[in-house]
């Protein structure tokens, strides 16, 4: 077994710089371009609303990031956000409970889904991607059963003919609509979660251990790490983050919406992937994920302002993703294959 040391040539150094700062440079250049050509782009209200819109994607991206850290990928995250939307609406509208209860119920449901995922992955040994794909279908279907496939709205007539007693509480609606000073509350939540995730992952033993599992689960186990527990934990954290994203969504929509969340999945995956490649970190990280979300927000906002249609945006999203991947895999020297030469 021989690890390989290669000296850094000028070409390699140039490439390293591109890998490390290329993405940030692209983001900044795009920002400048749009700011110069679209006067409305760089206003503070526009920037805040951009951040606000991206907050859910970013939070879901953080969840996916956690599962990437332990070497997996959570595809059920969009449907968990959708489940949160449904549960919050049902709690407040059908059962006339407070917003606090709704938040509690949603988070509990999230933890439960996370535990099921963890069970399938850790105990049943089903690969992450496949287990969470299955769960995605199951949640998407099962959540609609109690409401017969209809969105929950206040004032709706229930099956026994009476009017649903509750409505969204004012406090609950503030989750999306509130402000902290000039900053929209979802943006604050997003930033807090980014900081918390960053701290957790790179400053605490739990985070370190999770990275170890992602790097080499066998080595982690033989270093005394409870691999199953931490892998499971990542899925629980992921589902909880998805639930937080769902709470913001439902408070934004102001009612249950059977379709909410579903479309966030691929975007969140893209954001987490971009996040892994920025700063040349080569490993999933919270600030990168935020940057990925911001980059996608800039691209999409800029393109909308320039009058492009949704399909141009899909194309742009795909292009950004592929670019990130080229940075990660094609250019980066990080991924040196480990040579075993016994």
């Amino acid at each position, binding site marked *: 077994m*021989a*690890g*390989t040391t290669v000296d850094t040539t000028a070409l390699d150094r140039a490439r390293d710089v591109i890998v490390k700062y290329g993405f940030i440079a692209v983001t900044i250049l795009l920002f400048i371009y749009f700011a110069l050509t679209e006067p409305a782009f760089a206003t503070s209200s526009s920037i805040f609303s951009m951040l606000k819109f991206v907050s859910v994607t970013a939070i879901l991206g953080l969840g996916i990031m956690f599962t990437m850290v332990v070497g997996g990928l959570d595809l059920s995250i969009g449907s968990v956000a959708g489940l949160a939307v449904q549960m919050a609406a049902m709690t407040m509208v059908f059962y006339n409970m407070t917003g606090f209860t709704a938040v509690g119920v949603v988070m509990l449901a999230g933890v439960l889904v996370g535990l099921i995922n963890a069970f399938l992955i850790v105990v049943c040994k089903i690969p992450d991607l496949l287990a969470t794909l299955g769960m995605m279908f199951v949640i998407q279907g099962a959540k609609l059963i109690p409401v017969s496939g209809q969105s929950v709205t206040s004032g709706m007539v229930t099956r026994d003919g009476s009017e649903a007693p509750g409505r969204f509480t004012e406090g609950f609606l503030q989750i999306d609509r509130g402000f902290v000073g000039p900053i929209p509350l979802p943006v604050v939540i997003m930033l807090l979660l980014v900081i918390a995730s960053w701290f957790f992952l790179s400053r605490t033993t739990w985070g370190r251990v999770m990275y170890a599992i992602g790097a*080499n689960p066998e080595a*982690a186990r*033989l270093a005394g790490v409870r691999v199953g527990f931490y892998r499971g934990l990542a899925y629980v954290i992921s589902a909880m983050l998805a639930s937080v994203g769902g709470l913001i969504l439902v408070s934004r929509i102001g009612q249950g919406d059977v379709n909410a969340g579903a479309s966030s999945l691929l975007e969140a995956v893209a954001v987490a992937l971009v996040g892994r490649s920025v700063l040349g970190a*080569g*490993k999933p990280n919270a600030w990168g994920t935020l940057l990925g979300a911001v980059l996608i927000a800039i691209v999409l906002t800029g393109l909308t302002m320039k009058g492009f249609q949704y399909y141009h945006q899909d194309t742009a999203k795909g292009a950004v993703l592929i670019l990130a991947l080229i940075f990660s895999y094609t250019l980066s020297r990080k991924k040196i294959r480990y040579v075993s030469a016994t």
Partner: protein
Amino acid sequence: MQDEPRTDPTGSGDVALRLTDITKDFGPNRVLKGVTMDLRAGRVTALLGANGAGKSTLIKILSGIYEKQDGSVQVAGADVDITTPMTAAQHGIQTVHQRIDDSIIPDLTVAENLVFEELVRGALPRVRSLKALLPRAREIASSLDLGWSDTFLLKDAFEISIADGQLLLLARALNQRPKVLILDEPTSTLSAAEADRLFTLVRRLRDDGVAIMYVTHRLSEVRALADDLVVLRDGRLQQEQTTPFDMPAAVEAMLGKAIQVEADSLTEHRGEQVALQLRGLQLLPRSAPLDLDLRYGEVTGVIGLIGAGKTELAQAIFGVDRLRAGTMQLDGTDFAPRSTGAAVRRGIYLAPEDRAAQAMLPGWTLATTGSLPFLSSISPGSVINRRAERKMAADIINSYGVVATGPDQEMDALSGGNQQKVVVARWLRQSPRIMLLDEPFRGVDLGARREIAGKAREQAANGACIVVLVSDVEELREVADRVVVLAEGQIYLDAHASEIDNSTIIASMSEVA
């Protein structure tokens, strides 16, 4: 692998493969610095060399995995250009790489594995049912007297044992009727009986006029099998010999200086107090129960061939797998670790045998790799004190003589021996109660071996219970106070090191109940 003098000492002697001035760079790193050597038909040439000497690189060039920078390769006197594994095969060069996992295809049947190269080369019809491949597979198997039935040939390759896998690969290589056969540590996964079978085969091939290159770290095999011997050091050919060999000279050429570790130069420690009492432990699926007491204050050397159950023993104690049967008592109280973490908390540590697969974390630094098992000790409130972490790493570097630029150097960039020092040191320096070292010397050169052994003995002197599991007698001699010989999951010998000689150990290692 008994010393068995060859029956026919003369080979035909024609040069089958001639290497001239082979060089190879990895980036700015020149790994082969002009290797010139001959392999002769009908002779076995042993290739010796310390870690990183360039053996595998040379083999990979010959088998078409890497391309050489410079130099020439001649097969039977004609210049050849080896660029791919295919061209290597076309020129009659076949290689059996050491890790069979690298070469066996688990999803295909044994039969398909046997004829795989013929398939790839297009030597067999492109369209063929599995049944239609059987006759050819049978033919190959029977030409080597493998005695494999059709049911066996139709098994998926993932179902067969390591030893059978090794034979399969050998058969596959031989099926190509090679002029040159390269074997990279072929016995490392074989039992004694299987190794003997392999030796018989190798001799038969030699007698058929094949030129064989045989890579090994085991001098006994060299003695038993080789006609010629070459030593590679630092990318250069250092020495050539023909039988009879001057082994000390070869070792000196390998390492640059003669390192002699005499068994009696150890001051033997004798432990009194029992640390761990094993009763009725069943190590292998069909093995009989085993009783063993491990004591504080001495180094117990557990020796056995591959598959004897050494790793199982270590892993059972460390809580990696559930016990099949049996009980353990630690300091007189019942002990049944449910996880590796539980063992670590009780002061029982294991440095596993396969460093790359079981200890290395791609992209991690010396500091983070070193601190992983004991993170909590430097993390008040679970927040990692990074200064303490780096101090920990600096301490490993200093006290174990690790050659590294500092705590932040990536592990991947260290040489193999230094990697091994780090992954052993991170446990050994934490005052273990019981330290299990599984093949701690695998792939490390003698210098590093000596340092690791010294540290282990130092801990034993301080009262720790040290268990070293090896399959090589020399390695055992370098470190052990007490010798336990394991074969097929059972103990065949248990004695103080000074009270037995090597031949007794070797004899009981290959004992079969």
